[in-house]
């Protein structure tokens, strides 16, 4: 697993996977709310 405790110097402003997961989840929720995705199957 990647060690996320040390960021590379040029990644100082990059977001953690936690924050990305929340952003992507909220974007997906918005898309579902706006009916851009309908009846996603399983």
């Amino acid at each position, binding site marked *: 697993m990647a*060690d996320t405790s040390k960021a590379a110097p040029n990644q100082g402003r990059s977001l953690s996977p936690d924050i990305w*997961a929340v952003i992507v989840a909220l974007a997906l*929720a918005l898309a579902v709310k706006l009916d851009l995705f*309908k*009846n*996603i199957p399983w």
Partner: protein
Amino acid sequence: MASSTSTSLPRAESDNRWLNALSVVPGVLLLAGIGYAGKVLERSINGYAKAHHWTFPNIEYVLWAILIGLVISNVLTIPKIFQAGIDTYEFWLKLGIVLLGARFVLADVLKLGGISLALVVIEITVSLALMTFLGKIFKLKPKLISLLAIGSAVCGVSAIIAAKGAIDADDEDASFAMAAILALGALSLFTFPAIAHSLHMNDVSYGLWAGLGVDNTAEATAAGALYSDAAGKVAVLAKTARNAMIGFVVLGYAIYWSRKSQAEAVTNKAAFLWKKFPKFVLGFLLMSLLVGFHTFDKGQITSLGNLSKWAFLLTFAGVGLRTNFREMLQQGLRPFIVGALGEILIACLTLGLVIGANRVWGL
């Protein structure tokens, strides 16, 4: 790969970012392929067995995805091109957890989350004491004992990574502790559901036990889902409550080691806690809150729940792919023995706690 240049122009940085983003594609496709193969195998094998009146155990897609990943990682050599994408399994796990928040009514989160938190506090206290005791008996290095204790008490690999920097532990100690936690997590995937079936545990009790007793979040999610969909939901909730405690435990150890002048002092405790706090827990609660305010209709909630299942499918494939037993054994047996003894005792303790909670609160 783009070569690094000393004159780092914004354009070159932007190109690098695109290349980094593209580098995950093969591995993500591999995760998706394995996960989907698991789903297809579940459907086709169960359908075939039913059509031919065979008595065949119902093997869920979760187990198929993990098994395919295990076979690939332990029998074949995975080309490097896939590695960056395989490492994204943690992102898919967290995405799945946040989306799963949509399948929880806030009242359930508060009730089950409250019970989980109460049990988590007991579990963490006893686990820390037990692992420290066992580590001393087996004469492990003090910081390795701390890492094993944190890993088994809170949330596995993430906790070990969070603690490694805070207590200034060696890379070698961290890999020992991670290997032990991962190997035991892989074993719990098979032992937890089997024990629960033999005890005829209900979904909520088992989900709580998996969330409290299995260390790594991905394995706890998989162990829950292997029992049933409902148990998987509860396991994620209990594990999320446990993950929320990571900052407090790591802070305690950071202060302990800085007092011994073997780690940097923590100057701002609130900032430290916020930095270590897993932010996806807030996303999970936010999603549950949005559902509580009737933001989504029934069909939309089902869609969000299904999106969560797809994200978990990639995680389960990743659990198998990153479990390499040969590499784990190379890390040495002593940390593994300490971890195994501790985990067995913690599993018994958490099982007792859950059975007790079931009697008191009627789970």
